[in-house]
């Protein structure tokens, strides 16, 4: 064994912490090497000095200061228990993930109602022009932007798409409109419903619609309301009877000059106005469609009326997905479908929102 190796082993040799073979070999080296023996003696002396003189004495006021600190510690512990009853260390990452999840959840719930109302619609080609003709200008005036709507207005429907709106719809930038509240027909569920998974637009032409309309009772015999009431009813477009009474009153009193004060009526509206005079409060078209919807366990959600003719223009219904085929078959029995029946639905939905657009041959040709 060399001295260098022996010196490395000396600190453990003096504590008798070497294995037997190494210890014997080192002992042999020490017997032969006075230099290593003196090094061992120095190490042992140093260890002895440290053992006897290395211990230090704590300050005299150690215990008093410690008492003060323990009293302070007890007070702190009490405060900690009072104000931090759930002192649990939570990793920052977990807090971050939870916060992001809460924000996303809140945003989703804030946005969801608008997404429900602006669900993408499968508008067939040429539908815009059909709608332009079906919906008169007066009816459009009832549709006001949501921002300008008073608080009492409840029912919301989507505005009929114009050319510019169709372009903006392609960019998924659809505005919401409020419609002035109308009395809901009997059997129509106006309750806000949760959004179905899928929606579709169907354009139909009722078979023998002119005959059905012609069967309605005339305005004669309906008691005319006061002139002011009649005027309000005409402007709001609520009651066809009131409108008829007002027109009759105008004819009797010869208020030809007051015609100019009314909203301008376009030439295209004239035949529809004539139809409005003969329409009944309970439209047979609506009745037949309600029957079809009810027969397939569907729910009529909303009805949009034509402002002039007071005939239903757009019916919105929730139809069970498994009853869609039966629904279209029964629709085909009372009306002529002008859009192809959707062949395949995406899986997973229980109900489908179907918007039934009613049109006449004349308006479709135009």
């Amino acid at each position, binding site marked *: 064994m060399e001295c260098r190796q022996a*010196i*490395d*082993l*000396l*600190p*453990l040799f003096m*504590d008798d*912490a070497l294995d037997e073979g190494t210890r014997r070999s080192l002992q042999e080296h020490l017997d032969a090497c006075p230099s290593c023996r003196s*090094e061992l003696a*120095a*190490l042992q*002396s*140093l*260890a002895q*000095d*440290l*053992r006897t*003189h*290395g*211990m*230090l*004495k*704590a*300050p005299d006021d*150690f*215990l008093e*200061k*410690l008492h003060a*600190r*323990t009293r302070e*510690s007890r007070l702190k*512990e009490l405060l900690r228990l009072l104000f931090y009853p759930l002192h649990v260390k939570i990793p920052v990452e977990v807090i971050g993930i939870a916060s992001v999840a809460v924000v996303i959840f809140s945003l989703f719930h804030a946005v969801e109602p608008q997404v429900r109302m602006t669900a993408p619609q499968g508008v067939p080609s040429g539908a815009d022009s059909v709608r332009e003709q079906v919906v008169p200008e007066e009816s459009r005036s009832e549709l006001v932007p949501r921002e300008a709507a008073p608080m009492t207005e409840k029912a919301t429907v989507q505005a009929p798409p114009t050319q510019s709106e169709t372009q903006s719809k392609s960019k998924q930038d659809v505005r919401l409109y409020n419609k002035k509240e109308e009395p809901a027909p009997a059997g129509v569920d106006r309750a806000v419903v949760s959004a179905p998974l899928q929606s579709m637009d169907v354009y139909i032409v009722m078979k023998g619609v002119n005959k059905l309309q012609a069967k309605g009772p005339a305005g004669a015999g309906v008691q005319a309301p006061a002139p002011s009431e009649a005027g309000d009813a005409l402007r709001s477009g609520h009651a066809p009877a009131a409108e008829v009474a007002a027109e009759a009153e105008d004819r009797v009193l010869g208020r030809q000059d007051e015609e100019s004060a009314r909203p301008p009526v376009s030439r295209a509206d004239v035949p529809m106005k004539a139809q409005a005079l003969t329409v009944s409060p309970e439209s047979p078209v609506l009745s037949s469609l309600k029957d079809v919807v009810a027969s397939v366990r569907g729910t009529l959600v909303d009805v949009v009326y034509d402002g002039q003719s007071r005939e239903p223009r757009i019916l919105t219904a929730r139809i069970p997905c498994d009853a869609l085929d039966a629904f279209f078959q029964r629709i085909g029995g009372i009306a002529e479908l002008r859009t192809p029946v959707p062949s395949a639905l995406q899986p997973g939905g229980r109900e489908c929102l179907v918007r039934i657009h009613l049109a006449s041959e004349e308006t479709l040709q135009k």
Partner: protein
Amino acid sequence: MHKEQTLSSQQEDERLIRAFTAGDTAAFDALVIRYKDMVYTMCYYLLGDADEAADHAQETFVKVYRSLNAFRFESSFSTWLYTIALNTCRNRLKSLSYRLRRKTVSLDDTDETGRAVMEIADESCQPNGELEKKELMKHVRQAIAGLSVDHRTVIVLCDVKGLSYEEICRITGLDMGTVKSRISRARNELRARLRGYR
């Protein structure tokens, strides 16, 4: 003889701890008096400053005071106490405030309590051997302060306190091989630093 002393010491510790947990606060004072010098010494050698050592020795006892009710006698009280003291000092050594505050003057001129000696003691009152020993220990403390924290730790535990290798393993959490290696290197390094004085 030493083993019997250790056994009786452990029994005394156990008696005092049980008395403290039963509500006798004077028993805690007795424990502090028994171990305050050992804890203070350890803190002093590790932190290298008398005020820091007193502060963190007290901090160690405050921690013991708070958690003594949870002591389960699975190890000796002294081992548990030294482990707390070592961790307290390690935390302090890691802290930025300690590194900014650290001064190099503390170990140069200190007496046996570790406090700075402002005046030279009256040599006529003390025998020459005692003065030489004091001078030597001053250099020894200075040399220990120059060691790394790991080497300081094992020197204090092994040579100053005289703990066994097994106890050092339990206190430091190291395995036996690492402890032996550190003790060997630390002693040789300390011996090298004191070569001119001995």
